[in-house]
């Protein structure tokens, strides 16, 4: 799965969690907080993306994430790891 495909999954989850955000606002460099997400919304986006990608990753792994690109990178790293095993 490419980085763009993972971003598309994340974008879809963000639109579900934040239904009043328009799709154009969701860009890789934006943070979820900028889109109006509170801390629980951010957890929901992370959980939703993990479920959509069938990944099991500890929340600690997402500690340093500051924008959507960072979230995509952590997901991509684990997807790649899965594909190698």
């Amino acid at each position: 799965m490419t980085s763009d495909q993972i971003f598309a999954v994340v974008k879809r989850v963000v639109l579900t969690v934040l239904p009043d955000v328009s799709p154009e606002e969701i860009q890789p460099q934006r943070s979820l907080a900028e889109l109006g997400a509170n801390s629980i919304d951010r957890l929901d986006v992370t959980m939703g993306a993990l479920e959509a990608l069938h990944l099991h990753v500890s929340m600690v792994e997402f500690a340093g994430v500051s924008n959507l690109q960072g979230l995509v990178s952590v997901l991509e790293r684990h997807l790649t790891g899965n594909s190698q095993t």
Partner: protein
Amino acid sequence: MTSPEPVVITALGVVSALGRGVQEFAAGLRRGDCGIRHFLSPFPRTGAFLPDFSAVDFLRTLPECPGEVQRIAQRVLRQAPESAQMTVAAATEAWLMAGLHLMPIWEERIGIIIGGNNISQRYLAAGWRRFEDTPDYLSPRHAFLSLDTALVGLVSEVLGIHGCGLTVGAASASGNVAVWNAKQLLRAGVADCIIVCCVSSELSSLEMHAFQLLGAAAPVSLESCPAALYRPFDATSQGFIPGEAAACIVLETASSARLRGARVWAAVTGASLSLDGSHLPHASTSGEVHAMYSALLESQLHPTEVDYVNAHGSGSIQGDRCECDALVEVFGEKQPWVNSTKSLTGHCLAAAGLVELVACTLQMSEGFLHPNRNLRQPIDHRIRFVGDQSVATPLKNVLSNSFGFGGFNSSIVLRQPGMEFGNVFVAGEKIQSASWN
């Protein structure tokens, strides 16, 4: 000693299988419609349900519903239990009808009471199933959305309310008991206006099965005609058929209603609550008599002055028998009209009392009584049951009963507005009325 401040109803809201919104609901009552159907999802069940109800869709149909209210509702109700969708819908309809969006009271003087307990049981059951399958994907929202009190917070956030707020639980008497409590808080000066809202307890297959084992819920075959299944006060009744609904009543001190020029639908002249001293689900004639007498005493009414009783009438064999005996003991030879809204709406459990107070208010306002469905062989010929057609009749004083598992007995008395208040605006027109004494 001065008379306590009158408490009045200034708005209604309701979503039910009988009608989504007050207007549809009133029309359904008048026609004697039945909302009971067979459903196969999420498990085979029979009742007056509102599957996949969306508050956001409902709010779009309400004229004057501010865009900001719709936007907040859309965001906060995501993942919320079905009970929250219905609660926010009914509360918003009543809030708009009360004109609280146009003529706001100081927001700290508006309170919220949610009547009910153990409300979101289907949400909890679904959460458990999901957690057992995929624990890693649990939404952290479960920690607070599974609480009954989440409904208080959701309504307060959508409608921007900052006064007092709490839940009040009394099983199937919760609606009446919430009104009883709101009236006390208003008279104590805690708030000027309280939005009282109740939603039916969500039932999972587990609770339905337990109710049937207990003999409280009627056994159901999917081949049977659903509209003929629920038969309160009939000799062939086998128990209740569940219903889903949310109802809301805006209660206000008469002085606040007068100041705002709000429409007064009815006055709450009496409200009672007493216990049987038992945790069991059994009804008690003496407890019901005591509840009715207490509410009448507070209303300063003689039983002969009551025109109509909205019975608890759950269809329980023992419960219906007790209520008939209690009605005979209180009202004697001069029986008021009696009907049970449950044969139309299903038994809305925690919301039943409030759905029925909305029904009482609408019947009083429009001067009719809705039919009793499926009442062909009444268990007691001393009671003056409404037949299978609506009756047109003026109603001045009405009493509504609600009883709950665990020995809760509660009665509420409503009176046509305009008799006991000095100057009250009714439907925008100032009326001069007789004094209380």
